[in-house]
């Protein structure tokens, strides 16, 4: 039977957690990495209710955040500093990605204040036209907002899930090019 988009969430989230754990500095054991599937605020609250010792900032976020139905979110928390980041992964299974998919992810990032978002298409890369649009205007995937006197920078990457090799592949489109690059950036942000 042909798999639907939702059927891939589990395998993708497993690989993403693997990649995050492997590319974070393993000498420092103070990072927690979790994948969350579905509605973000209740997923966070469930995680905490199940015994995860979240820092103050994450606890507050879990209460205050909007009810957003996200495909996969990866939570990375630095237990030493109490800082955390949530990366939103918007999964698609379409012939070619376009502006509507990108717009949806940008919307989620802006509303949730997640600084990083990755648009992932299953087994198909980006079309030449879409790539031209993205590369022609770098600001489309690198957006800075001023909220309450603070700058928040949102960066978006576009990648591919190869369902045969179970690997995330890169398209060179967007401002986040690779997973290690994304993880290194997060590591700095929450240090």
């Amino acid at each position: 039977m042909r798999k639907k988009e939702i059927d891939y969430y589990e395998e993708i989230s497993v690989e993403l957690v693997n990649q995050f754990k492997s590319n974070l500095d393993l000498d420092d054991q103070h990072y927690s990495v979790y994948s969350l599937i579905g509605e973000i605020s209740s997923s966070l609250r469930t995680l905490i209710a199940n015994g995860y010792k979240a820092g103050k900032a994450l606890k507050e976020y879990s209460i205050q955040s909007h009810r957003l139905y996200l495909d996969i979110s990866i939570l990375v928390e630095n237990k030493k500093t109490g800082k955390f980041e949530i990366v939103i992964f918007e999964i698609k299974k379409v012939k070619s990605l376009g502006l509507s998919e990108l717009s949806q992810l940008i919307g989620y990032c802006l509303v949730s204040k997640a600084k990083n978002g990755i648009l992932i298409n299953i087994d198909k890369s980006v079309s030449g036209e879409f790539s031209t649009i993205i590369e022609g205007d770098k600001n489309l995937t690198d957006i800075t907002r001023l909220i309450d006197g603070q700058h928040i920078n949102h960066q978006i990457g576009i990648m591919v899930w190869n369902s045969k090799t179970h690997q995330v592949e890169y398209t060179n489109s967007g401002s986040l090019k690779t997973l290690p690059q994304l993880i290194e950036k997060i590591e700095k942000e929450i240090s």
Partner: protein
Amino acid sequence: MRKITTDKAYIIGLIIGGGRIDNNTLQITLPYKKWGDLAFEPERAGGIAGDILMRLNPILSTTYGMETSYTISKDWKIRCTQITETLKKDLVQLALPSSGEMRLNANLKGVIPALKSDEHKKRFIAGLVDTVGSLAKSHRRFNDAFQIISFEFKGDNFELVKDVANIFHSLECPPDQILWNHPNQHSGTDRYYRSWKKGFKIRVSLADYIFKGSFVFESKKLSATENSKQHKGVTRNKKQIIQEPGRITLHKDQNAQWLPEKIRGGLYLHNIHFNGVFGVKIETDTIIKNFLCQPEKYFCPFTCLTKGTREEIDKIINLEEYLKQTTYHSLYTSVNHLLDQVNSDSNYFYGNTPKDGFPQNYVLQAVAYIIAAPQGKTRGKKVSGNYKDILNNNLTQQIQIQIPDRGTCLRITANGFSTLIGYVNEEFNKTLITSSIGSSKITVREPTFIECVKL
């Protein structure tokens, strides 16, 4: 050691498997030959091109800022004409060579500590899969039901092979077998075979690899999936039961300077014996130890079986002092008569007792060869088909048997072809062993004519 990313681990694996650096150029050879032949496997070749463009190129360009192009001739070759400073720095930090063919020169002393997680190791091995990992369907153990992915290395980089094998162990994906580039492995019976340097093979159960490893090239994964369909009943590599090893000849190159000092001069009964001496983790230690307590049972100081033309064998005899000094008396007999002498009381011909002499199985294989060779029924020096059928179909064939006056080698000749079969006597073998009993590195000295057993 600074950590490396999973993407870098893959690229380093790829460079070690197939990379060559000259000046500022990196060339990665993908030795796909038949497997990726454009004419015979066009669909797969298209897939390989896609893998290079859509998978490898983005990883290389985003990680190291290097652009690549590829060419297809006998092998596939990927070329980066400008090695970036970032890659150069990483090579230095990982203690890898900055020029030359990597798999011949690289050691993993700097790489292993940088592969901090299983994911790093998997991605490093994935780089090797895409270069030296062979998925030809002919790689199997005994039959098609146990498919193998074979990692093939040429040259004399024993340390690299050891380190890669230990990475497989650490991933709980132990090699099913390692074929070492050593005469005891590539020429176990023929003391005089010179072209034994056929390289190394780390053979891993395909089922294990699919379960524990990872793939970057989709074409490799598809091929692995296709091959794995041939698995019947066998899913994972269980702890191996080691069969009692056959007799190994004391090869002419046993002490070759080309071999690393650690193993030079040693006699190796089995690939697992090799692993133990060389430092590859072994799971069947006690079984191999049993064999090491009685090494005299598992070697022959002479050639076990050497085949060739009459002239080639003459040359060998002239160059081998104990064969040159031996006196032979000839007898002429038929295949039928020889077969009549085979009996179950002894495994040997022409010995002093039932426990010494010239092994019957080698004698019969030798006769089959000298019959088949002039008929063109050989592949290299192996007879085509079952050797017993060749004997039974040529019962009246006359052969010359030259029996030595000392326990050295028996010579059998017919139709311009000739063979040598070594003398076996375990009591005599004991006198040649120079290592202590139970020692993991067995050393055996060459026999002199004067001490060879009188027959």
